[in-house]
């Protein structure tokens, strides 16, 4: 039984190294993105919670399976309790860079970190 390293041709290495490079570049770029400032959560596809990342707080987000507990602290946003069967979302935090995601898909909850000033945060103004 040959090990993969014995089988791999020069072309294989080229492809592998090229793709690895792209992936690592992407990861480096992600790590370099500035910290976001706004936590936005969608429940079932609709925005259900928006908060300042700098303001520590805890909130329960309702999904079809129950409450997902979101904690915002100095480190970022984390999910500390969720009724999802595998509870993967609890291991995904803390999220603090713009674009970071915490996804509790069985409970249809998606938490993302955004830039606060990307657009007017409302459709109409009540005055």
């Amino acid at each position, binding site marked *: *039984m*040959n*090990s*993969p390293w014995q*089988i*791999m*041709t*020069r*072309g*294989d*290495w*080229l*492809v*592998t190294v090229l*793709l*690895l490079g*792209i*992936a*690592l*570049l*992407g*990861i480096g*770029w*992600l790590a370099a993105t500035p910290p976001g400032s706004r936590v936005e959560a*969608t429940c079932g596809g609709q925005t259900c919670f928006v908060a300042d990342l700098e303001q520590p707080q805890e909130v329960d987000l309702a999904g079809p399976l129950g409450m997902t507990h979101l904690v915002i602290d100095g480190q970022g946003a984390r999910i500390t309790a969720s009724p999802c069967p*595998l509870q*993967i979302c609890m291991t*995904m935090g803390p999220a603090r860079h713009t*674009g*970071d*995601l915490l*996804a509790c*898909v*069985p409970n249809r909850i*998606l938490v*993302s*970190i955004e830039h606060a000033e990307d657009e007017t945060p409302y459709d109409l103004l009540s005055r």
Partner: protein
Amino acid sequence: MTCSAVDPKRLAAARRRVFLALFIALAVSVHILEALLPSPIPWLRPGLANGMTLVALYLYDGHAAWSVSLTRVGIGALLLGRLFSPGFWLALAGALAATAVMVLLHCWAGRRLSPIGVSVAGAASHVCGQVLIARWLILRHDALWQVLPPLLLFAVLSGILTGWLATLLIDQIGQHPAFKTVPTGPGKTEDRVA
């Protein structure tokens, strides 16, 4: 499977069908096994089932590879009860992208690429296709692009694993008399790397 009275071409075609059916069955099993694995972003899978597509590609040809991958996605979705669900579209997108890239690469590069290289490229395409479709149809959130680099890294590693397993399988199955007698087109079974 030795029936001398039969026309060798028809025998070869029948053997091909039988082997493809076996590959598809194996691919479906792996596909379902994968679907049961936990994953940080649901529906995004390493694409180990692409290994069977790879085997079909190396032992037969591009047509065989397409048959295995598309049938695998269709039957897998039926068995998992998620035909036309988001998971189905992601699996389909991944399979289409991966198969297209693998068939084209195998055709262009010939023996300059072993199954491992083709598999790595296929796995990366698989992930890219999935993220593309997921962004377009399911999560419609630009943050989704952020999962691409880590998944790509993962895909390269899982692609090496898949390609290696596929190579072992190709070597094993390739010794079967069926593949010794099958008249293959240029650059098919000969591409195997010992």
